[in-house]
């Protein structure tokens, strides 16, 4: 039987928890949930921010035949998969090396983390200079190492543009995930490693048999965050290429952004149509997340 005092304490805790949660809940309602439902208002309209014209199912029909949009969906998957394949193992590797506390590791940790605190549009702008064709630093270095014979048009050539935006994405994201992994690594008890050493395990065995399984709970969270972020990335691509050349680097959210806010040389404002695409994009990302969660559960059973 719970005493009166315990009941009172529990009620008090409930109230204070509610109060402490309320700012986040209110913000979530205003900035995430309300705008999501707001989207549905204009699905059947051609809306330019001033006047809404009823167009029936035109926006929905157009969405299913819009070649640029479906190309942008494919590009988003291409971008996200390539980015994740590189950024996750790389950040884990960096975290493991830095965790060993070798001399200078603190400095490296800071350097790797630095891109996270710089605005994506700023570092993308810097990369446009690095990628410059005419006497650009990257081309000059590659040419001096005899790796390429002629300068590459990193941002203007359809063959190379996706590689370029992925390089920038990896550079911008690796430090962030490295910090997540480092916090995961610090939670693994040193005694486990000590007993490992006593048992004669080598570095490879320690990593695959101890570190990785012990990291699995945090790895799942990091992967989930990385997947949703990669699918929603568009800021650096907007600065680097604006989706070009010929829409080769156009991704879902950049296309939607251009339709909502207008783009001087691309579109005039088409909010109604953009809301339909936003809903489709949300469904796509939702589906990817659900699939990942199922996969992650299976991962649990195996590990």
């Amino acid at each position, binding site marked *: 039987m719970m005493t009166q005092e315990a009941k009172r304490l529990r009620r008090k805790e409930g109230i204070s928890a509610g109060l402490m949660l309320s700012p986040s809940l209110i913000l979530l309602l205003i900035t995430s949930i309300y705008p999501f439902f707001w989207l549905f208002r204009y699905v059947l309209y*051609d809306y330019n921010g001033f006047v809404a*014209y009823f167009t029936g199912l035109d926006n929905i029909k157009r969405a299913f035949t819009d070649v640029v949009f479906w190309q942008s969906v494919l590009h988003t998957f291409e971008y996200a998969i390539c980015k994740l394949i590189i950024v996750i193992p790389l950040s884990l590797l960096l975290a493991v090396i830095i965790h060993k506390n070798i001399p200078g590791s603190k400095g490296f940790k800071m350097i790797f983390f630095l891109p996270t605190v710089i605005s994506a549009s700023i570092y993308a702008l810097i990369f446009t200079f690095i990628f410059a064709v*005419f006497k*650009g630093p990257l081309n000059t270095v590659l040419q001096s190492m005899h790796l390429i014979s002629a300068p590459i048009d990193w941002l*203007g050539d359809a063959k190379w543009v996706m590689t370029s935006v992925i390089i920038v994405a990896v550079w911008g994201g690796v430090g962030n995930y490295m910090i997540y992994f480092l916090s995961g690594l610090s939670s693994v008890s040193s005694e486990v490693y000590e007993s490992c050493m006593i048992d004669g395990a080598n570095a490879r065995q320690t990593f695959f048999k101890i570190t990785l399984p012990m990291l699995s709970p945090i790895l799942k969270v990091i992967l989930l965050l990385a997947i949703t972020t990669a699918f929603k990335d568009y800021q650096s691509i907007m600065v680097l290429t604006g989706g070009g050349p010929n829409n080769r680097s156009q991704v879902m959210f950049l296309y939607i952004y251009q339709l909502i*806010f*207008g783009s001087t040389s691309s*579109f*005039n404002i088409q909010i109604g149509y953009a809301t339909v695409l936003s809903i489709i994009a949300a469904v796509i990302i939702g589906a990817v997340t659900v699939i990942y969660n199922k996969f992650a559960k299976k991962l649990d059973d195996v590990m």
Partner: protein
Amino acid sequence: MKKIVLIAMLIACTLSLVFASGSQEAAATTKTEKTVVEIWTNDRHDAEYMSKVVEDFNNSNDKIEIKLTTIVEDYPNMLVMSYTSGNAPDLFYMNARGTGFDLQTFVKSGMLEAYPESLLKDPEFEKVTDASKHIVEGINAIDGKPYGIYNVMRSGTRMIYNVDLLKKSGYTEFPKTLEELVDMTIQISKDGNGEYYGISTCASAQFERWLEGIINKSGIYHYDYKNGVFNFDGYKEAMLLAQRFFKEGAMFPGSNTQGVDAMRAQFANGTFATWGNASQEAGVFTDQFPIKDFEWAVTELPSLDGTTKGTVDSRPQKGLFMFSSSKNKDAAWEVVKYLNSESVVKGYVEKGYALPLSIYMQSVVDMSKIGRLADFAPVSYEGLYPSVPAVSVAGDSYAKAIWNCIVSGTDVDKCIADLNKRYNEALEKDIKLGKVKRVVIANYDPLNPNAGEISYLSK
């Protein structure tokens, strides 16, 4: 104890807020004698001069006070938001064809106040602005009613070139036709041997920057004003020629994805010979990236056959528009009159910010004070086309689609057929919705597009 400190701090904060607002109110009441006219602008380059103009007015006028605010980001959206939230300024500046600003939508939504007859008939106002000559449908007027009057202008596009690089390749004169320009720039790139190139573009407004001006000067426009439909057929010849810039190595490599300032810096560094842009480049190449190591010159755009058959878009600037929500309309019109007075406009032009718009002002301004801006002096075939219906097109805009076709060297006919189809489908759909009207000009003359009789059709 902690609780007491916390409560004391809360009380102190609340009291300070109460007293602060009280003192603000007190301050406001002492200033109520003057009517405040609030103006928004998105121009930063002239801020120093405009602040002085405002200060002079505020010091000499004891009834009206001007408050000038610069809005840098997202200007048209900020204007809309200010109006819908009831915080709109009395007046705002907008240049002709300002990015993101659609006059039709603003007027249709009842947001703007038309210029009063009394001001338009004021001889001094007319003398400085030539207002009656610069009322263009869809740009600053709807149904003949003007909502904004400009007083200065940016020139139409010109070709700016490196005289030394042209000479090195044996050119003493700038080409008169697009084909000659293509041949010349290919030759310069060959002579440059990877050190310098013939011509360049940049990442923004690539097609509009100079190529579209060349097409328009040849009497070709993407909207057929006689029949009220979009028609891109005339662009074919220029597109085929422009593809050679890329195929045959005339274009500065990678310039297609570089920012405008990066390419200006390259031009000032002598790494390419030809750059197309309007009169703002006068300031760029004298102050921002001053050219010291070579001679540079400015010339008119070439055309397809070397003759002038059409209008090249110029950009009247500094148009003041009034929000219908203004509570101080009379005072605001007074301010409009002051900001369009001879001394204010003369000072503005002589500072080198823009070119004079009216014939009278061209005669009063001391052109020796404006430096290289004089090279961009207005020419007879520069003007404004009436606004084309702003349709919601599915897919890329014509400028983007045409430029993509030029850069990638793909089928020009296919690109033009696709544009004709998409633009006219969008036009018919938007007319049906009542969103836009078909613009038709009887007796349309490409050299004088505003002279014909304009009608707006709902079918």
